[in-house]
């Protein structure tokens, strides 16, 4: 058997990850709704921040600064270069938050 972990523990962790990512997504959506004056239902994680949401560099940095403050993390430019979609942002913030907590 490859997987020896307790399935309940594994499920709990997966749920925690999903919860945390949902929380980050909610925060990003709140920012986008305020900034773009659109409905939350119009936003999905696959949307490109620059192309679909037409964010310029100022708006991106405002979001970055707010997320850094809210999650007590640092989002360096070299990492931001690989962020294209809303979902990419969620994943990056999640990864950095976990690293910070450890």
């Amino acid at each position: 058997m490859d997987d020896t972990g307790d399935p309940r523990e594994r499920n709990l962790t997966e749920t925690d990850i999903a919860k945390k990512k949902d929380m980050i997504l909610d925060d990003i959506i709140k920012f986008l709704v305020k900034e773009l004056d659109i409905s939350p239902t119009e936003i999905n994680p696959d949307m490109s921040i620059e192309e679909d949401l037409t964010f310029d560099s100022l708006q991106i940095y405002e979001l970055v600064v707010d997320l850094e403050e809210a999650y007590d993390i640092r989002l360096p430019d070299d990492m931001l270069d690989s962020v294209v979609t809303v979902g990419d942002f969620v994943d990056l913030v999640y990864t950095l938050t976990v690293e910070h907590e450890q």
Partner: protein
Amino acid sequence: MTHEEQELGLLLSRVFENVVMTEEKSLQKGYFSDLSIAEMHTLDAIGPYEARTMSETAQSLGVTTGTLTVSIDRLVRKGYVIRKRDEHDRRIVRISLTRDGKVACRMHSKFHAVLARHILEPYAEDEKDMLIRMVSDIDEFLTAQLVRYDDEEDNEMSIRKTARDVAAQQRRREDNG
């Protein structure tokens, strides 16, 4: 003066002026047109994260704390800097950036990074390394020259001027002669 010396001298002056002017124009036309280059560099010296003391910020900018105080007063009024007394030692003043200050600082860093990216783009990896090494040598040499002037009493260069002041001074010298 050899042809090479003449060409390099001219190129150095032009690179310097063009960097300053490009920064100036990008600021004027950008979102932070109420900031001068010197003010933007002050935000940069404070940085977007931990609060810094006045003396360490003055030191990294190469100015006196008196000069920095004037500049910080202006930046506080414009809403880019927060000034707070240290909770444990009331004699220490700590400065940090507001949300707008942080955004301005991040955008300015990005401006420099994009400029550098475009300059390096046409070169192969070993050429990039060599270019960086050569420019570092130039920087090191010029920093040593500056220290020499700093040591001389009553010299108008005794306090490192902002890039803008030095460029203006250079232009005036050229115009005069």
